[in-house]
């Protein structure tokens, strides 16, 4: 911003400026493109390699020679990779956990924002207190509890510990606090019960917040590696999530770059598509992740 202000202020005085201005602009864009390349080339190289044959994947030609979709079809059809299962598992877990988080954090957030009950402030402190409990302390007790309940290695264990998060509940509570009370008052005068007010009045008003929550929770669940590793990692590959499966693929077939790179792309694509479609939610998510850290 400052560079440009200074440049344009001087422009009329010095006749030779426009040309050096162009040169400066070219240089500026060159720098931008080099930096962008540092961020994008690793992904492009990964994408290109996934369309190579195995021997060609050890060469450095940027255009595959020959092109092939063998790695992709192989991931899909070769039963030793289990990739369709991993994708199905990850999609299933993400769908269930996003739905549960949407409903429960809205319900709880509404209660903490609007309903009066004894001990509300104390319980809310407990909600915020969960943010202080680190995963490295929880991992052992949760592992032991799940083994004890016979849920270890089952999807139920992962879903249970992720039913609702304090960050999400806090986020919904804050959003409900910004909604004027008039809407509920009107519904109350009409004789609506508390659940009806929540479901018919408050939820529709909170749709923007819920969209942001759904997107960020999907990203979190889809990308999660730590808890699936703890709860499914030692068990049956039938229960692996895509991230676990990709880690497994890489450690087992790590020289088979076309398959490994295709797997990496698959692990990124859903989040990438959502990112490109809903960028502004990710920006607000980065800010709320600050609360979590």
């Amino acid at each position, binding site marked *: 911003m400052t560079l440009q202000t200074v440049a344009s202020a001087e422009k009329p005085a010095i006749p030779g400026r426009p040309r050096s201005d162009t040169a400066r602009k070219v240089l500026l864009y060159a720098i931008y493109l080099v930096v962008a390349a540092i961020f994008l080339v*690793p992904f492009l190289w990964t994408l290109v390699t996934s369309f190579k044959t195995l021997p060609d994947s050890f060469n450095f030609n940027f255009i595959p020679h020959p092109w092939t979709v063998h790695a992709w079809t192989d991931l899909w059809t070769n039963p030793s990779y289990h990739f369709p299962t991993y994708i199905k598992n990850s999609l299933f877990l993400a769908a269930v956990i996003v739905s549960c988080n949407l409903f429960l954090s809205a319900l709880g957030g509404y209660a903490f924002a609007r309903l009066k009950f004894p001990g509300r402030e104390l319980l809310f402190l407990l*909600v915020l207190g*969960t943010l202080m409990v680190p*995963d490295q302390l929880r991992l*052992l007790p949760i592992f032991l509890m799940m083994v004890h309940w016979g849920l270890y290695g089952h999807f139920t264990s992962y879903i249970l510990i992720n039913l609702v998060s304090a960050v999400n509940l806090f986020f919904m509570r804050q959003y409900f606090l910004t909604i004027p009370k008039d809407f509920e008052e009107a519904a109350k005068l009409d004789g609506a019960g508390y659940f009806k007010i929540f479901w018919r009045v408050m939820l529709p008003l909170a749709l923007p917040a819920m969209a942001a929550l759904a997107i960020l929770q999907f990203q979190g669940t889809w*990308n999660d590696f730590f808890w699936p590793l703890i709860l499914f990692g030692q068990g049956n590959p039938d229960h692996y999530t895509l*991230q676990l499966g990709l880690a497994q693929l890489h450690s087992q077939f790590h020289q088979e770059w076309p398959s490994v790179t295709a797997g990496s792309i698959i692990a990124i694509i859903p989040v990438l598509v959502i990112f490109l479609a809903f960028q502004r939610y990710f920006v607000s998510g980065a800010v709320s992740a600050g609360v979590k850290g």
Partner: protein
Amino acid sequence: MSVMATTTATGAAPRRLSASMASARLREAGWGYGFALIPIAVFGLFFIYPFAYAVYISFYHWGIAGKTSPGTGTFNYAKVLHDPVFHIALRNIAEYTVAVVPLEMALGLSLALMINQKIHGRNFFRSAFYFPAIASSVAITTIILFIFAQDGLFNHIFGLNKDWFGQASTVGWGIVGMNAWTTSGTVMIFYLASLQAIPDDVYEAAALDNTGAWRTFWKITFPLLRPAHFFCLVVFGIGALKLFDQAFLVAGGASGSPNYSTMYPIIYIYNAAFGTFDFGLAAAAGVIYFVLIFGLTVVQRLTVGRQEVA
């Protein structure tokens, strides 16, 4: 509310009305508890209780078959504190954090300054810089291991022949570089928000004084970003102390190989739990590391946080 309105309107039989008011309150409280019940149960069962449970386990000899000694004691704590591997883990995470946080912040601030210019394709560049931050840790680590393999693209471009992630002397720096690369996009978002909050007239004054761009940045922009610097230092500093995924994936497990160079505290805890099945030791290490991070946070809040508010 509607109940209160009736009270003032009729005025008669106050006892009955206050009773109905109480029952309305009771009903509201009942629904409140009902709505909050499942979240509270989840937080109690999977956060608060495990916290207490971990502390409990840490005072026992506890193996895969459960409690193996009836007596309690601080022997697990003594063992962790005297374990040379735990010392290595602490030194590694200290080095990692001291290296990665300033690097992330410098990169993130540079990217934010780039995006804050009036240029064509701003949205494209912003998305490009933020892209690694949204991808999963597994995908990122896999891709970086591929690019930085001994026969990989990086060595090919620069004419080198190093096994970056395979030897103890470089693997720590490799993880620093990888995570600085992925996290700088997130840091950029924070700095961008702060940069856009700086009013334009500050810069206009500098332009009138004919202050150069470089001087303007160090004398005006950088000091004005103080709150953002402190915020990033705290948030990304604590984030760095929680390093796990990348170290686990680079080493292909929690052994810390090669030669304990990828041994970090959470890797140590994981390995004590699922590598050697010494649950008491793992719990004690978890408690010690929690106290350490908690202490650091408190110190940070008291020193850095105060200055920021003032």
